[in-house]
């Protein structure tokens, strides 16, 4: 009978790993755009996730404008709408602060603006955390949906072993995949997406081509913020969160982006998926306190064996 329990635990951990991993993947894509492609160090990314969660919360619950949609559809529409809201915030942030320490303005400088970005975004992160504390309070919140406490049962597969697929996570996972794939297609095949990649690759040359790099950067930064916010909104359906939730996830995002390979959107997604998967599966053998340690053991192993990341490709001629 022990075998049945073991099989059930393993299968459930795998299922949770994949569903949560996909949401982490989307979250990492946001940072992948900002850090991986545009090479802007952004320590405030975790707080953007937090803002996504709270945007969704205020849209959906209480007297929120999406309250009429009910607890089944509302939370997911709210998560998607958190995207445009944080996107707008991200564009403003870029226009007034980030643009001064990145892009064409620092293109030729020794550190490419990284020192400035480090301090500026760390400052933004602190302001958002403490501002969040004042505005939202410190008690843990969650965007309630009955779907979070119901599951699809698959099985019994072996003996009594059954896989439980949490409905809220399943829907979140599906939305995450759809958003990630759409973003990938936009970046890969549209004129705008190519201009964005060109501007990130070489801002001076992009200007010679007639690309307004400031505008493109602002858009890309906003997009990176919005994508992470959508992931935040999705996570808010099954997770309780407060103003400091970003701290836990900013590290996960960076490891996901580096794991997947800098500069690759697809890589960032797989990186996030890997991190989520490892985190959930490590729960099988490790106490919960060590879950994040497990992530970094795997992270170090992959970086040791494949320094360019899972999907990193070297564009330089050897």
């Amino acid at each position, binding site marked *: 009978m022990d075998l049945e329990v073991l099989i059930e635990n393993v299968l459930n951990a795998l299922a949770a790993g994949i569903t949560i991993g996909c949401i982490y993947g989307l979250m990492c894509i946001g940072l992948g755009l900002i850090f991986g492609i545009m090479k802007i160090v952004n320590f405030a990314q975790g707080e953007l996730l937090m803002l996504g969660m709270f945007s969704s919360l205020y849209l959906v619950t209480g007297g929120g404008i999406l309250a009429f949609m009910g607890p089944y559809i509302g939370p997911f529409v709210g998560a998607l709408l958190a995207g445009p809201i944080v996107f707008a915030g991200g564009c403003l942030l870029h226009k007034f602060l980030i643009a001064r320490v990145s892009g064409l303005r620092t293109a030729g400088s020794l550190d490419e603006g990284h020192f400035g970005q480090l301090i500026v975004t760390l400052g933004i992160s602190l302001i958002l955390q403490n501002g969040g504390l004042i505005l939202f309070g410190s008690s843990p919140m969650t965007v309630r949906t009955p779907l979070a406490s119901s599951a699809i049962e698959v099985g019994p597969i072996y003996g009594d072993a059954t896989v439980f697929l949490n409905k809220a996570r399943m829907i979140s996972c599906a939305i995450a995949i759809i958003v990630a794939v759409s973003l990938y297609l936009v970046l890969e095949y549209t*004129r705008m997406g*190519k*201009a964005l*990649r*060109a501007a990130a*690759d*070489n801002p*001076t*040359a*992009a*200007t*010679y*081509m*007639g*690309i*307004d*790099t400031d505008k493109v950067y602002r858009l890309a930064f906003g997009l990176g913020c919005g994508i992470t916010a959508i992931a935040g909104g999705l996570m808010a359906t099954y997770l309780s969160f407060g103003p400091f939730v970003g701290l836990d996830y900013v590290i996960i995002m960076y490891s996901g982006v580096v794991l997947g390979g800098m*500069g690759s959107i697809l890589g960032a997604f797989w990186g996030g998926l890997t991190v989520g998967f490892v985190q959930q599966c490590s729960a099988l053998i490790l106490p919960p306190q060590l879950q994040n340690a497990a992530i970094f053991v795997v992270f170090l192993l992959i970086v040791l064996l494949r320094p360019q990341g899972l999907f990193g*490709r070297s*564009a*330089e*001629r050897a």
Partner: protein
Amino acid sequence: MLEVTNLSVSYGGLRALTDVTLSVKEGQFVTVVGPNGAGKTTLFKTISGIVPAASGQITFMGENLFGLHPARRAHLGIAHVPEGRQVFKTLTVLENLEMGAYPQAGQRAWHHTLDRIHTLFPILAERATQLAGTLSGGEQQMVAIGRGLACAPRLLMLDEPSMGLAPAVADTIFERVSQIHKEDGVTILLVEQRVAEALELSDHGYVLETGRMVLDGPYETLLQDDRVRKSYLGLS
């Protein structure tokens, strides 16, 4: 077409250009030669709006360029093929060319210009899906020139296209540039250190030394000047 009048530029606290005047007429092939550090690249960057001018004026087709956002120049029909090629390394060859065609004129003419670019540089058709960063120096230069052509330019500015290339490859590049000028009727402004080859192609030449235009005239006149013969052509 392009008029640079009494242009002075300070760059990192140093005076890079002093009182430079230069004129490119429609259909001309104009070359600026000069030693390292003479300010040739700065001149190009100022025309492209990347480096601000201290004083003077630059007009293109009668329009003052100083009031314009740097990115607008490509839309007016100025293509800048920068020093050191500066291709988009993480984009494929084809995507690089597509980015060249970012302005509207380039998009309209895209199918025609792509054919033309592939005729001039057949290797770029073969390498279309390869990342530009993985190409050899000569191939990258071809991408850079192709990218410049893709915006359907009125004026093509080339900054040392032969830099770092094997002599045979450099010869091919010069030949193509000459073809672009003669067959496509594109006005060319070239900066070069290979003085003999460059001047041979051009209608008009300028000699830039330590930020000043010291000499200018048609090819024949420059060839007869003792300083040019001695310093740049190695003749006595």
